[in-house]
């Protein structure tokens, strides 16, 4: 009897130890958007940190040595990909965390699972401006891609922590349900803009306008990465003169140019954030909430 009780106590202790010592997976995300999705899917089985907070042009980020620490200790790294974040490769190289080497489960590149827009063909060079050879990299701005990103994160988390796979899947299904419900709401609120001609400073919004079936006309840049010229703006003015139009401008592009162009075109102007402002599980939804409000003001 005594030994039987001891055995039961020992097995209980072992079981409790497993629960107590199981640590969350450490996830590093390049932006708040992927971090938010990872927090939703992973729940308390993940601890998520972010390399770049807020709305930033990810191409211009200077990698810092302090970023290496997060990468060194991570079980999973979620990058943007599409050569937009090449500085991440430097971090992976210096961190020397083999769990995050390309093709390992901990290396997550959602750009490989989405349908990329504006993928160029043929010979491209400087005449075409700063073209992204793998397509437009702002893919998180389509909620449908948010779903694909979430599915990828679910699959990879399940590989890294198989015992929590059911939890990840349940959370994914909840994420899908909530996202689709909100998507209907956002679409409904944006539908009055479908008759407007939309212009933007740079090709940031392609996935957003595609998702919500808005009517995108052109960018103020004549080609990507080249500042607007008077000639190009006058050409655009001719195209929008008979229509209601709106200029949308990511906050890290020159707001003054966008505002003055809006005055020139007699268009409305909306400065817009491009990324979630926090990393909590609702932050990705709040990004679209905010975009819808700012677009319709």
């Amino acid at each position, binding site marked *: 009897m005594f030994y039987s009780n001891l055995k039961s106590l020992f097995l209980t202790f072992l079981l409790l130890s497993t629960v107590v010592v199981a640590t969350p997976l450490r996830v590093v995300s390049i932006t708040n958007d992927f971090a938010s999705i990872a927090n939703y899917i992973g729940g308390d089985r993940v601890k998520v940190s972010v390399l770049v*907070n807020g709305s*930033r*042009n990810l*191409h*211009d980020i*200077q*990698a*810092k*040595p*302090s970023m*290496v*620490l997060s990468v*060194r200790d991570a079980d999973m790294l979620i990058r943007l990909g599409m*050569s937009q974040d*090449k*500085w991440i*490769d*430097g*971090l*992976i*190289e*210096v*961190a*020397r*965390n*083999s*769990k995050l*080497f*390309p*093709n*390992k489960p901990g290396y997550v590149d959602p750009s490989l699972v989405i349908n990329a827009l504006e*993928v160029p*063909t*043929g*010979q491209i*060079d*400087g005449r075409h401006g*700063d073209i992204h050879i793998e397509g437009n990299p702002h893919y998180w701005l389509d909620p449908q891609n948010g779903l694909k990103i979430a599915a990828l994160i679910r699959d990879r988390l399940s590989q890294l922590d198989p015992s929590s796979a059911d939890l990840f899947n349940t959370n994914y299904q909840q994420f899908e349900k909530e996202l689709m419900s909100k998507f209907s709401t956002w679409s409904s609120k944006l539908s009055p803009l479908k008759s407007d001609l939309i212009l933007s400073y740079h090709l940031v919004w392609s996935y957003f306008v595609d998702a919500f079936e808005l009517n995108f006309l052109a960018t103020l840049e004549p080609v990507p*990465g080249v500042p607007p010229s008077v000639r190009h703006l006058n050409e655009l003015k001719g195209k929008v003169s008979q229509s209601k139009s709106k200029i949308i401008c990511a*906050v*890290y592009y020159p707001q003054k140019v966008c505002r003055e162009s809006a005055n020139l075109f007699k268009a409305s102007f909306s400065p817009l954030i491009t990324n979630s402002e926090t990393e909590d599980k609702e932050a990705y939804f709040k990004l679209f909430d905010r975009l819808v409000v700012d677009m319709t003001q």
Partner: protein
Amino acid sequence: MSKFLKFIIVTLFFSFGLTAQEKTATSLPNISLIGNFVGQNVDGARSFGVEEVELSFQHYLYPGVKADVFIGLGKHEEGEEEGGYEVSLEEAYVTFMSLPATLFPNSSINLPLGAMVGQKLLAVGRLNALHPEQWAFVDRPVVHQKFFGEGHGLAGQGGQLAYLLPLPFFSQLEVGYWTAVSAHGHEGGAEEEGDDEAHGVEHENAMLHARLWNSFKIGNASEVSVGLSSLTSNFNADEDNDKSAIMAFDVNLVRELSNNKSLDFQVEWFQAKYGEEGEEGEEAAARETQDGFVFTTLFNFSKLYSAGVRYSSLGKHGDEGEDVTQVAYQITRQLTETSKFRIQHNVNDNPNAENVTLVQFIFGMGPHSHVLQ
């Protein structure tokens, strides 16, 4: 250029051109080209030309194993072929990001111990390891020209281990064993006239190198890096006076002011200890020390414009030579992410060196990348 090298380059470019037409998979390396055009005005004498063209080939060989090769076509500086161009191997190295993961792939050991073998610009201080397109100025400070030679700096052939220390801040230790490639340092550039100056540090035979690099985040917008480096050349020599030693201490503070604005302060301090050229063995005189100091401030106004000031100071070598100081001012206009115009003016407080104005256009084609430095 050797026929073999020409053949390799033409073949690779031809193959790259074919595969670039379609979006199909390719096993070719990333191929890039950096062009560096420099003009100068020294006391009314003007020149402009192609300073160098650098080809790079970068490719993963294996998960966590990467090869980088940089070949330069640069000017002959002196001798019968002065003004012509020569091919040189600038760097060619393989990086093993994690030795345990590569050698024992089935092991669960995740030790951040990496290695690099081949030919590499050595990380003594901050600047020596950088390529010209990474420099904040057109030229290298007089201190670096004296201590690390002309051209791009001091390179070695050999290998190094790099370990990320398990500390709550970034701390990386590198230890390397190299054979000198660019051996002799002396003052270079258009300013050199008389040769009353002491010869610079002589790097030869085996070199032992170490660098400890720490970095600390200060709030959300600032980061400070501190580095301590040591280099001993000819370190197998029997006599200490045949060895050359350089100690370096560097600090870099970066402060982000807004989306595209930032301020960067860099300090490098060097102390070299070396003997006179030509004196070896028991007859060599005792080594003398020489100090060098570089302070740089860079201000990025916007995505397109930046400006900087650099102050360099080089002391005497023992009692030999003169104290030399130089102040350089530059303004840079980015054309694209990989191309820029730069104008720079060097003011030399040195009777043997003229003030010089430099203009530069540097451009890049292809996905050229460098490791975090």
